Structures are given as structure tokens and as C-alpha cells.
């Protein structure tokens, strides 16, 4: 039997869920925050402003620019929210109707591969809903649906890194505001799902949250969350504060996230081959 039929089951059961309606709630406050600021300054926000603000993250900690140990709550809410939305489907399915599906599929590999694809799609769906929310808020304020920023909002978007006005190109917005955060989140979500095969989901979720916190306060190429922060992009965080505070290249962040994603799929496939499939009460 083709794993595509198992995937159809996952699309039906895993993607048609009311919980995705929570995705707009994760970003709507940030969107209105930047919109209100723009209006207060006599401007109309661009779509790029909202997207870059949603995924701006936090400047390099210890760079001397801002050493405040504060969490960028909007960014954390978005990242943590996507992880939470993706947390339980695989195990829920495995202890419910999915048991009938897996024995009929006759392939653990196919079943897990289908869950990996579901995970990618689910992350992309959350992301898409968030961007759609940003589009609607931009229209609400009468702004332009342009993937660039309003120069007058530069300091609001990038805080202490930017003096004066800068224009973020469409390519930079696509890379640092869309593609890299999406790939990074997909990798983190896949890591979380794979870890669920080794430990309880709550611990898997916590490990990914810790990974995000480490990415905020510890600058390292091994911190997966760094690529999901527009402020850590090398074209914003230049090495003007010293090479150790320079941002990550979009290319490197994409390659690292893709590598983690592939490794998680391989590790999950190997582990799931020997995983005991138990019921809820066991």
C-alpha cells in the first residue's frame, strides 16, 4: 500500500483541525502594535514592516548595544505557539484511529514518513495563516502589501542596530522574514516530533523551548532559533560591533536548519522501527 494513502489520512485528521484558528492570535497583537506606531508617526505600515517585526527576535546579547536579559515575548509566542500546535498530533493519532491505519499500511517507515510530511505542512500552514493575518492588518491600516519596510519605521524594527533610515529589500525580507524563519521552525518542529519518540511530549516541548532561549542569549551557529530572527541576519547585525556579534548568514542558517530537519527524519525513522505502540491507558 502506498504511503500516500496514509498521508491522505493525516491531511484529513491532522490538518483539518480547529486549533489552527489560534494561529492569528499569536501574531495579531504584534501586527496592531506596529500598525498603531506607524499611524502615531503619521505613516502607513507596509506588509514587510509587520513581517519583519513578527520575526525580528532579539539583538545579539552582550553586544553592548542592549544587554537587557528580556525575552522578546512576541517572537517567543510565535515560535512556541507553532511548536505547541504541532506537539500532540503524532502521538494522539498513534493511540487512536491511527492504530487501524498503521496496521493496514503495514509499514512503520511509510507511517512515520507521512507524519514528517504532515509536520512540514502543518508548520507551513501556521506560518501562512500568520502572514495572512499580517496582510489583513496591513489592509486595515491602508498600508501597502509590499515586501519591504517603511524607511521611517527602521528604528522601531531594528532598534539599536540601525541609526537613521534603511530600506530592506524584497529579497532580504523574503530571506530573513519568511524563508529562514519558516525553515528554522520546520526543523525545530521536526526535532520536537522526533524527540517525542524518545521521551514524553512535555519534555520534548521544553527542550525545544530551551533551544529557543539559548538562541536568544547565546550566539552560536548550533542554536537553531537564530536563523528565525531577522535582527540576527548578517545584513542587519553587521560586524560593526565586532566580528563576534555579527549576524548569521541566511544561507548558513538555511543549510543548518535543513540538515537538522533531515537528521531528525532519519533518526525518527530508525527509532520508530522499534517503538512500542501502546494505548492511552498503557
Amino acid at each position: 500500500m502506498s504511503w500516500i494513502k496514509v498521508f491522505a489520512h493525516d491531511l484529513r485528521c491532522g490538518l483539518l483541525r480547529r486549533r489552527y484558528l489560534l494561529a492569528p492570535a499569536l501574531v495579531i497583537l504584534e501586527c496592531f502594535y506596529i500598525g498603531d506606531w506607524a499611524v502615531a508617526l503619521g505613516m502607513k505600515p507596509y506588509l514587510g514592516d509587520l513581517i519583519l517585526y513578527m520575526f525580528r527576535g532579539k539583538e545579539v546579547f552582550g553586544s553592548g548595544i542592549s544587554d537587557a536579559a528580556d525575552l522578546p515575548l512576541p517572537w517567543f509566542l510565535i515560535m512556541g505557539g507553532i511548536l505547541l500546535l504541532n506537539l500532540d498530533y503524532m502521538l494522539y493519532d498513534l493511540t487512536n484511529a491511527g492504530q487501524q491505519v498503521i496496521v493496514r499500511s503495514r509499514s512503520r517507515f511509510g507511517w512515520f514518513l507521512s507524519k514528517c510530511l504532515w509536520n512540514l505542512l502543518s508548520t507551513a500552514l501556521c506560518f501562512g495563516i500568520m502572514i495572512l493575518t499580517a496582510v489583513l492588518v496591513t489592509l486595515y491600516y491602508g498600508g501597502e502589501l509590499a515586501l519591504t519596510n517603511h524607511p521611517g519605521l527602521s528604528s522601531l524594527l531594528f532598534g539599536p542596530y540601525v541609526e537613521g533610515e534603511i530600506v530592506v529589500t524584497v529579497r532580504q525580507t523574503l530571506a530573513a522574514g519568511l524563508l529562514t524563519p519558516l525553515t528554522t521552525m520546520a526543523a525545530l518542529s521536526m526535532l520536537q516530533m522526533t524527540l517525542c519518540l524518545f521521551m514524553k511530549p512535555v519534555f520534548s516541548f521544553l527542550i525545544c523551548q530551551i533551544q529557543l532561549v539559548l538562541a536568544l542569549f547565546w550566539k552560536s551557529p548550533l542554536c537553531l532559533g537564530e536563523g528565525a530572527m531577522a535582527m540576527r541576519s548578517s545584513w542587519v547585525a553587521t560586524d560593526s560591533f565586532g566580528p563576534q556579534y555579527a549576524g548569521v548568514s541566511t544561507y548558513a542558517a538555511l543549510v543548518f536548519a535543513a540538515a537538522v530537519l533531515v537528521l531528525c527524519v532519519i533518526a525518527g525513522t530508525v527509532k520508530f522501527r522499534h517503538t512500542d505502540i501502546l494505548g492511552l491507558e498503557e
Partner: protein
Amino acid sequence: MLIEMNDVTKTIKGALILDRVTLRFESGRIYGLQGPNGSGKTMLMRLVAGLIRPTKGEILIDGKRLGHDMDFPPSLGLLIENPAFLPGYTGKRNLELLAELQARVGDAEICQALRDTGLDPEDRRKYRKYSLGMKQRLGIAAAIMEKPDLILLDEPTNALDEKGVEEICGLIRRERDRGALVIVACHDREILEGLADEIYAVAEGRVERRAT
């Protein structure tokens, strides 16, 4: 079909669930597993279904090693623990979705399985509106609809009234007569004695054959 469990031990998180179990199951017979809750009946069925792996020993299905040569038995109908279906679909639609996975049976077989278990194929109620007894019947219908060679039923008479128990026992016998290998776990000794060709007592992880 021939299933051989050779010296199978299963531990989960350090707890001994099954201890050196050696059994042999053949087609055309009903095997009963009888024992109190927590004795290991369900785990034994999960092992045969390929859902869990033995810690020691091996399970052979027609000479092929489960977990090595195959992930799951090639022709399996299963009702383990409580039946679980998609709550927003009718019983028939749930069976159709499951049947699509293997594409072995069509509408006629699905309707027949529903009727055999006392359900109405035309019933438009969603699964979430089903009574416990109806859910149980739908679980059994899912297990038999594809006419599998191996049928595993864990407490199939749960939530059924006396008439329902008789109907389901008759259905299980017909599956046996068709040539299927049926393993039924039940804590009710009386039901098993009237149904099974062989009964095995499961207690504290050990399995012993009982006279029938």
C-alpha cells in the same frame, strides 16, 4: 496461517509484562485468552499485531519473523482496547476510509460487515453520537470487513447486552469457519468457554493452556 511465539519475553520500563511465552496458533481456530485486568492479555495481542516488539524471543508468521521480515502481519483485523474512529464521520464512512488504505473491499463488503455486526449502513449519525455498544460493534466490523486471515479481538463483548454477545459470538464462529485465525481476549471465562477452541490463562505474565 501459522503463528509461533518462541520464548517471548516483554518488559516495559523495567516491568515484566510477559515471561518466556511459547505459543502456537493455527488458522481455522478460535483461541481464547482469559485473565484478570492487567494480566498481559492485551500486550500479548499487541505483540502478535506487531504494535510492540518482544524484548526477548521471536514471533514467526508463516515462518517469517515479525519485526524483521515484516512490520505487521500481512492480513490483520484488529480491535484492541477501545474502538477509535474519526468522530465527525458516520460509521460507514469511517470503514470506507479504512478500506481505502488496502483497497481490498468495496461498498458491498463494508455494508455486509455493518449488517453482520447489527449496524445499519444507512445510519447517518456521526460516530460521536454512537452509544458504547454501537462503537464496539463498529470496532468489530472494522476488524472483519476485509476478511483477514488473522483477527485479534480484545474484549469484543464489552458494552454489549446478552443478545449482542450472542450475535458477536456467532459472527466470530463464522469467521473461524471461513478459515480465519481468531484470538479473543476476554476476562469473562463463561463467554470464552462457549466460544473458543482453546483457552489460555494469562496471569502475571505467564500463559498456560486450560482444558476446554
